């Protein structure tokens, strides 16, 4: 029940676990680290909140002291500088979604990158992303990529700089074993649509941007 430090992407998070019910916090692939440098954010976890999942609607309220993200099964309170957050959750699903919501907001707040609904397979050291809404086939694409290694099967972490985009190993995996690789540079993004026939079409950058907007996790 003590403090646990995790490194995700370039950042270190200290988690203060005050959960009464035992819950899996992050994938076992997420790297635990010693607290050798100051954490970027301290996250306190508490349970006995709300009711089970109803829908994905998140109500966001901002004032000068804090930002809150509220769903039927979780409540996130975070300070405006994204240094400290408290997550009140109903169950393990709520905890996972709240952590992803918080992490996504954190990296956008710092203009560091994006958390995208997608799986990511590695081919010759380069990352290839398969993105789409729930049910579009992200995990299927990941499974069919075998024996290629996977960085993620549900959400990919993208660090965006002037030099390029780097994809990081995600601690938000659902079921598949992910790779021991920690990062790879982005080579392609596939936007998945269910269809009876399989084909790959190149789309314009502007259409790609528009279609990626609602694939960002929050």
């Amino acid at each position, binding site marked *: 029940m003590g403090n646990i430090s995790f490194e995700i992407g370039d950042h270190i998070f200290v988690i203060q676990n005050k959960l009464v019910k035992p819950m899996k916090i992050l994938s076992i692939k997420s790297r635990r680290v010693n607290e050798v440098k100051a954490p970027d954010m301290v996250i306190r976890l508490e349970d006995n909140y709300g009711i089970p999942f109803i829908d994905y609607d998140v109500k966001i309220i901002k004032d000068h002291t804090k930002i809150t993200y509220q769903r039927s099964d979780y409540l996130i309170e975070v300070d405006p500088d994204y240094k400290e957050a408290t997550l009140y959750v109903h169950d393990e699903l709520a905890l996972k979604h709240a952590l992803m919501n918080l992490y996504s907001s954190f990296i956008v707040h710092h203009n560091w990158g994006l958390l995208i609904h997608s799986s990511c397979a590695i081919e010759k050291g380069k990352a290839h992303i398969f993105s789409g809404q729930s049910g579009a086939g992200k995990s299927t694409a990941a499974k069919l990529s075998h024996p290629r290694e996977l960085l993620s099967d549900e959400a990919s972490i993208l660090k965006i700089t002037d030099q390029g985009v780097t994809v990081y190993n995600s601690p938000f995996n659902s079921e598949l074993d992910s790779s021991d690789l920690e990062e790879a540079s982005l080579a392609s993004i596939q936007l998945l649509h269910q269809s009876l026939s399989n084909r790959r079409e190149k789309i*314009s*950058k*502007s*259409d790609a*941007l*528009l279609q990626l*907007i609602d694939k960002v996790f929050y």
Partner: protein
Amino acid sequence: MKRYIQNKTYDVTRLDDEYVVLNTDNYTVTKLNGVGGFCWSLLHEEQTVDSLLEAIHKEFPEDEQPDEGEIEEFIMDLIQCELVHHVS
């Protein structure tokens, strides 16, 4: 003649010859082609349909030039997306 100008709360990204404009007030996203993006850039200052047409004629080849009706329709679309307003 009616004059139009951009609203001020937006973020624009140019990708190849196309423009993606985010309205940061109502979080709508609008995609513009090359001619549309050129008009959008000019609407940083007050423009009329005629002034836009004149500028397009100087900048683009004849087969890419819209007519007056298309420009009017384009302006109406931008107004509906709350990206441009009529200067009274």
